[in-house]
């Protein structure tokens, strides 16, 4: 599903450049649930941004579902993001003047799905994350966990190939974190490919595979026995 070869990325910080990714080789099959771990500064967010086409790599190859991702125009990148990827952010990033339903419907809107169909579909996804009754509420009226569930519904709405989660539990207490991870596991059970960036051990062990990043290189890549989040909820 995802394949990257010898990926390099550096940032220009004034006069000196910071080499963040120093040759990453990585492959993820369909249906995998991968945790990307590492301390801050290890390059994990940069990697996720490149995977998410929010940022470009300096060199290396990136293939997503058989499509080479290279030299994309902004318009093309937007199109690919919409079609291939769903984002889940640490700070939820809901649009605060739109209701939960409208937030979930946004990616469908950008796809040009007609209004009625869009709302029906968005409502289905809200139901799946258990927030159907909250459809008309604004993000400011929701709790952190609820916000993240709306964000997950939004990421799912466009039926992307891969879900990218950047510290999805970073702003949540542990109970809520496990609820969110439970939801992510269930989505993965249905066959969706998910990449989770985290620095929390327990969250990482709720995935099926852990990739350790240190100083811009992968130092460890192991399969783990998944801990189900259900038992903590």
């Amino acid at each position, binding site marked *: 599903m995802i394949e990257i070869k010898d990926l390099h990325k550096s940032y220009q910080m004034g006069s000196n450049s910071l080499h963040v990714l120093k040759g990453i080789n990585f492959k993820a099959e369909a249906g995998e649930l991968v945790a990307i771990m590492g301390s801050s500064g290890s390059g994990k967010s940069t990697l996720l*941004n490149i995977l*998410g086409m*929010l*940022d470009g790599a300096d060199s290396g190859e990136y293939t997503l579902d058989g499509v080479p991702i290279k030299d994309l125009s*902004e*318009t093309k990148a*937007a*199109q*690919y*993001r*919409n*079609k291939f990827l769903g*984002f889940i*952010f640490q*700070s939820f*990033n*809901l*649009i605060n*003047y739109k209701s939960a339903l*409208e937030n979930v419907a*946004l*990616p469908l*809107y*950008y*796809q040009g799905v007609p*209004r009625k169909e869009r709302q029906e579909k968005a409502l289905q996804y809200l139901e799946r994350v258990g927030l159907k009754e909250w459809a008309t509420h604004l993000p400011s009226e929701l709790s952190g966990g609820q916000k993240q569930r709306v964000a997950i519904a*939004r990421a799912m709405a*466009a039926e992307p190939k891969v879900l990218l989660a950047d510290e999805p539990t970073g702003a949540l207490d542990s109970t809520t974190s496990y609820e969110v991870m439970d939801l992510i596991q269930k989505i993965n059970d249905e066959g969706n490919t998910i990449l989770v960036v985290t620095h929390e051990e327990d969250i990482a062990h709720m995935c099926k595979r852990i990739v350790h990043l240190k100083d811009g290189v992968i130092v460890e890549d192991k399969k783990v026995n998944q801990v189900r989040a259900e038992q903590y909820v």
Partner: protein
Amino acid sequence: MFSRDRWREIIEVLTTNVWRTIFTAFGVCWGIFILIVLLAAGKGLENGIKKDFGDIATNTMFMWTRSTTKAYEGLPKGRSFEFKINDVQAIKDNVPNMRFVSPRNQLGGFRGGGNVVRGIRTGAYNVYGDYPEIINQDPMSVTSGRFLNYNDIREKRKVAIIGQGVKNDLYEKGEDALGTYIKIQGVNFFVIGTYKKNNSDGDGEEAQKEIYVPFTSFSQAFNRGEDVGWMAITAHDGSSISQLKENIINVMRERHKVHPEDKRAIGYFDLYEQYNRVESLFGALKGVAYIVGIMVLLSGIIGVSNIMLIVVKERTKEIGIRRALGEKPWSIKKQILMESIFLTLISGMTGIIFGSLVIYGINSLLDSVGPVDMFLNPSVSVGVVSGALTILMASGLLAGFIPANSAIRVRPIEALRTE
């Protein structure tokens, strides 16, 4: 373009900070208000001045004879001469595009003595010997009876059309003038009609105190023979009399043995030139109004552009999210542009409405206090309003252009990082 969600978003964005929006809108509103009011004031002045020209055909010149100032072909200088009736045909034959060439003779004038008598009443009036065409050059409305016709000319009938003012002087109130006789310098004329003229300048009263009789009867009754006092010459629309003028005068010089370079022997008044001068004055006035209005408008536009930049800045993160969700840059750009155009158009229309109300107010004020000198019916045409709307549309686009570009220049990753 007209998707409901887009419009909802526009309204939401503009109403999140209502006062800011209103103050921004005020700049544009004020600019267009100034533009509309200035143009209307210019139009009012123009209407007022043009009314002084009355209904006179403006593509017209008047021509008369003076004494020569140069000796020519054995004739001395200082010689006086008269136009003759067959000069009319000569002008028509030799100069193209002549619409009317009317020979005229005249009695009376400034401080003329009491030349018209009816019973025990007398009056001093201008009496013109004219051809029927004169009514097209110096329009008047015939209020009763009829104007002169060619039968009158051919048969040299002693008939007369009198002005409303003449009628008021010589007749009792309510008395019918038609079918009565008035005595002009001892000759009886049969009144066949009355007229009224529509100019408002100082001559207004004078213009109602004129008497028109057939040219031929005038010549016979007052011993003018073949002589023509002066001529009123109108060219066809599309060719200006100012250009034909030289031609006409040359024909006259030749026929009356006047030196070709004698500038003073034939006098004329070119109404068209005067009219053009006024026209170009108002053209310039309109230009000034446009420049001032657009300059004021421009500062309003800059205000809109400024606010849109701030709005974009405030929404950087939101724009980042939307791009991460797959909104195309052009769609974001369109959103910003539409917000800008919408804001400009709404505030501009408010300005137009206020401007129209003020113009309406001035009009009703003018109606209630009666006519004011040189100012009449200030107004803006539909063309000006739609022109103003086009300007607004374009300026809204212009105002939104820089903010819209800055909105999509921020890369989604940077936008998301903004907290």
